[in-house]
């Protein structure tokens, strides 16, 4: 039986390598969007995939570590409120771990729907609640500004996690052997 909060050696390695890919995508693989100065972060699609495969702890830590390190490299210091929000989003994505059957090679209609509902909930909580509130508490940023930024981020990241995450999960499910795929002649 799968457990949400079990941390095995494999989870640790998945966190380490997942965070490395997250960093790379976060810095270099952004899809420029029609709205100026914003881009779709493909990294959130990746954290959604890893969270679904390895659980909430892996999802949360991958996004947290990846975001913190890439901020540190680019800006010299992490922007803690958004780093924490990334972690929260990744953690919530992880609840798709037990609710989908990707490991058994099945990712169709209902699974896709479930994954996307969880993913949107995660993004809304992280970017519309956690990130703006922490911005106000830690950095005393103006209220209007942070909620507008949060709303844009929630929308963009939901699309990115939805489109890229779903496609990645479909590709992953196709590589797994289906349960009961062998029949006796």
């Amino acid at each position, binding site marked *: 039986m799968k457990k949400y909060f079990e*941390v*095995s*050696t*494999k989870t*640790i*390695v*998945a*966190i*380490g*390598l*997942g*965070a*490395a*890919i997250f*960093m*790379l*995508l976060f*810095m*270099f*693989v952004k*899809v*420029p*969007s*029609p709205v100026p*100065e914003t881009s*779709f972060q*493909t990294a959130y*699609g*990746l954290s959604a*995939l890893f969270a679904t495969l390895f659980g909430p702890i892996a999802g949360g*830590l991958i996004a947290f*570590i*990846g975001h913190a*390190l890439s901020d*540190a*490299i*680019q*800006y*010299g*210091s*992490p922007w*803690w409120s958004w780093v924490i929000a990334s972690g929260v989003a990744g953690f919530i994505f992880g609840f798709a771990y037990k609710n989908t059957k990707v490991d058994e090679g099945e990712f169709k209609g209902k699974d896709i729907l479930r994954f996307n509902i969880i993913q949107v909930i995660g993004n809304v909580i992280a970017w519309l609640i956690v990130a703006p509130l922490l911005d106000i508490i*830690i*950095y*005393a*940023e*103006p*209220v*209007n*500004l942070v909620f*507008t930024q949060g709303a844009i981020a929630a929308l963009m990241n939901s699309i990115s996690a939805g*489109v*890229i995450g779903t*496609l*990645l999960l479909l*590709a*992953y499910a196709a*590589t797994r052997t289906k349960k009961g795929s062998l029949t006796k002649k």
Partner: protein
Amino acid sequence: MKIKLFSYNVIDTPIHRLSGLTKLACFLLLTFAVMFSYDIRFILFVMLFSFIILKVSKIKFSQIKLMIIYVLIFLITNAILTFLFEPEYGVSIYGTRHEVLRIFGRYNLTQEQLLYQTTKVLKYASVIPLGIIFLLTTNPSEFAASLNGVGIPYKVAYAVSLTLRYFPDIQRDYQNISQAQQARGLEMSKKAKFGSRFKNALLIIIPLIFSTLDRIESISNAMDLRGFGKLKKRTWYSKKKIETGDYVAIGLSVLIFAMSILISIFINGSRFFNPFI
């Protein structure tokens, strides 16, 4: 695309000699001190302090040029956005209103807004050197040991050290895949249509992720075979001993941290320094 991760070089300065644990603790204490306070005098003091340390640790400008450019772009955008969204935010914080310049409509420049925004820019500007010093003077292999030292579970610390260890490998894989796909005619620039940009990004990410998933399997098997995670504690090969210098550094940081809190409570009565009343 060629960002060298932690361009750490071995020089012998008092800062390099400190243990990684000390530097992480000092970095956290000082950043939280600056994040908490909105007193421009205190922030200027920390800024001066961090620039002195930057000088002492002999970091060259060429090492940090790119970061400084990114930070400047960020600071300018943030300042403009703040003014556009909340031109009266300073007034609501300090409770008074001294107009300097009428622009139009609700966009009037006030002394309060100027103070608030200058403080904010300085706040961010004074944290950056601290982060740079920490990143450029700490040996990456010591990083995990220091994380574990400040109380983070060693499994998480180990995951961070795996990230640092495998980032260059993954970066190389990414470049190979991306060049191979571009040689086959994949368009990644703005010339491609918006929808196909998504698809093209995926065509690079998918092989990268699947090769990484295989790698996760073999690394975790290797770690399991060597008995990783069997015990509650773990020792680190690259951990440095705590010496006198470390106590001095931590003492100074704790002092500055305490100053930030005490100034806010006893002198200003809030996080903001208010010269207008």
